[in-house]
């Protein structure tokens, strides 16, 4: 029984680490991923990509936290893609 695409809101964050940052690029990405993981909504979707999926309010809250942590880690560019699921209320 699939529950594909069932989150109300999905946000994909693609981090572009800064080559001149204090931390190594991999560590910048790792710090940002760990910050996102605290929300319980995150999953990895690529080497530099993290997806936050869940209810609208909690995703937006987690998004701000993830961006803040990413910037603190030295990341200077973050690509954000937001997708809303129109029929999400039918899924758990």
């Amino acid at each position: 029984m699939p529950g594909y695409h069932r989150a109300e809101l999905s946000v994909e964050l693609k981090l572009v680490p800064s080559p001149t940052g204090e931390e190594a690029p991999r560590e910048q990405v790792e710090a940002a991923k760990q910050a996102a993981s605290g929300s319980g909504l995150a999953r990895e979707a690529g080497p530099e990509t993290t997806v936050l999926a869940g209810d609208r309010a909690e995703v937006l809250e987690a998004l701000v936290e993830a961006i803040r942590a990413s910037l603190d880690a030295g990341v200077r560019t973050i690509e954000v893609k937001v997708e809303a699921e129109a029929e999400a209320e039918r899924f758990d």
Partner: protein
Amino acid sequence: MTRTQTTPTLVTRERPKAPASTPGRIGESTIRSDGVPKVRGEFEYSSDLWMNGMLWGATLRSPHPHANIWSLDTSEAEAMPGVYAVLTHEDVPGRKVYGMEIPDQPVLAWERVRYQGEPIAIVAADHPETARRALDRISVEYEVLEPVTDAEEAMSESAPKLHLSGNVLRHVRIEHGDPAATADVVVTGEYEIGMQDHAFLGPESGLAVPDEEGGVDLYISTQWLHIDRDQVAESLGLDPGMVRLTLSGVGGAFGGREDLSMQIHACLLALHTSRPVKMVYNREESFFGHVHRHPAKMRYEHGATSDGRLVYVRARLIFDGGAYASSSNAVCLNAATFACGPYDVPHAEIDSYMLYTNNPPCGAMRGFGAVQACFAHESQMDELAQALGMDPVELRIENAIEPGMRFPFGQEVPPPAPVAELLERVSAVPMPEEKEVVGRDLRELPGGVSNVTHGEGVERGVGYALGFKNIGFSAGFDDYSTARVTLSVEDDEPLARVHTAAAEVGQGLITVQAQIARTELGIEKVVVLPADTRVGSAGSSSASRQTYMTGAAVKMACEAVREHLFERVREEFGEDPGDLFLEDGRVVSGGHGIVVLLTELIGGEEIEELVEFHHKETIPLDEKGQGDAHVQFAFAAHRAVVEVDTELGLVRVVEIASAQDVGKAMNPQALEGQIEGGIAQGLGLALMEEIQIGEGKVLNASFTDYLIPTILDMPPVRAEILELADPEAPYGLKGVGEPPTIASTPAIVAALRDATGRKLSRVPVKPDQIVGLAKKPPDRPLQPGSRGPQGEES
């Protein structure tokens, strides 16, 4: 009913000719068009696909269940003559992860691998051996990490986090009635189920063909074409319309083809090389190429009154989901909702947990969460009967759930639910003759012609079990199927063409679609076209749903065609459409007899209707685990008779008696096949089928070492079939594929307990458990309040 339009698109390979089905209407045993070719070895499976100029794909897989990838060098492989492409995660143009419920599984791994066999790189070459050698030239530098291999340990705070959101993939809790309920008699038990494989005979395989316009055709054996297409397109970064899938010959599925295996890989290679690419896993690779049944550890406490009425059930179910999500979310839900069995339980507390580990990913398999729970709740019912001094059949009948009652998850039990009747019927089946053991044909003794016993030490046992299963997709999923039916005249005969995307996986779906069309349109000649994505989704051939869902869609499309014909008869002949019916290729009026031949009415036209059938709405469980989560329930009862060589632990299952409510036997012969096949898989789980895992590594990835029942292991099956119509289902039918698998396992184990007096709390039951040599699983102390084991643990 919803009507939709689809647009045929170009295809890159000639389609196989659709077989005309032999005559047969609903309720008649109808010979399957694929049956004889399969038996003769003439059937074209997806592994037989061939195209001139095609390349062969191969997959580099991780040898480690848990490791960091520090470097990946493909240059040496790329330089090999005959190698056309070597691709890694960097070559995935779209989404780099996939998954039916949660897209968490890498198409090709980057940085970390989470299970043994995880794909890291793919190769296309002009010969399969060249491709295999190229894999050897790919250099991967790993940092091997300690694998997390125990689901309960994965829950602990100290366990390494395998995914960003932690190791608990899902927790479903059901609270029903009074959590502090007490009872006169209490029994507790801990049960364990091993990792079963689908063991389908046709390994994962398919052929991807680029269309020279940036799109791709994929010829594939799968259970759900459209969900494959959507995931493939997303990872290829293509519009779904540019990815077209056609079902190829499927060599069994049982849930193991719901997830993707080589689909994205073959398409990536085909688009990269502009050549057709075929991929075929060998048997060993197949064990790493699909998910398996979830292993589970289940702790139960049952309370009952002294006269045998259930008071409460408390259960904690721990499932090992392996490295990635697959359909584990839904399995966790199913197990929770079926945890108490088909019984009237006034109070219940159920916790069902699904964990990520570094074991092979687990997902859909016939029975889907109900199998694990059934082994535990039926073992508990036998324990309770023993504690109460009651007959186990009597205890079950006393507590059998009935229509109008509520399941512990709050849903009202819909009719028909003949739980007690099924058990009464199966227990009324005459017992098989018990021949004198001394002097018997060796084939009728445990161990067979291995000549290990001539009757000494052989004990007979009898066991019963009840099981049930939801039919169709649940918990709010908008489940539907699409069908297009076209009626025309060919060779002076009316001909119906039925087109759906429903996957024939060996269950007889093509035949039943033809039976429905023949019945509804009153004609003989029906062609079921190959399933593909040129028509709308049919959903998956799983959850025992396809005859219900696609059968209903075909029925509705035929009805729409029929309405069209009757309207024309009204216009041309002035007949009342309400008085008309179709019979033997004619339109007949109840009052005036034959009105017109269909061939005359249709002439040179084609009458086409395209419909979607949606089943009734379901809803997700709320925070207390309550809700109308399921569409339909199917029940089955089994009685197993076994003989055990108590000295060597060898088992012969003498007979399985079965009683199952099917609503309507659409094709009785195929139904018997489903019942016997399901029981074979249940027998396998009871006695022999288990993927052995050591430190996250599969130890028996072959049919030499992973045992499945053969014809010598299968006993005679005596099946009682009840046809109690479900008023909400097409033709009153119920899904039939899964119930036989669910209760057969606990019935066999109950019979083993009866024969040996041992507790036998883990399946598959191995000979060393039967003779008492096995270590005692589980090794944790029992819960407070436990009565303790009644017999010797094994």
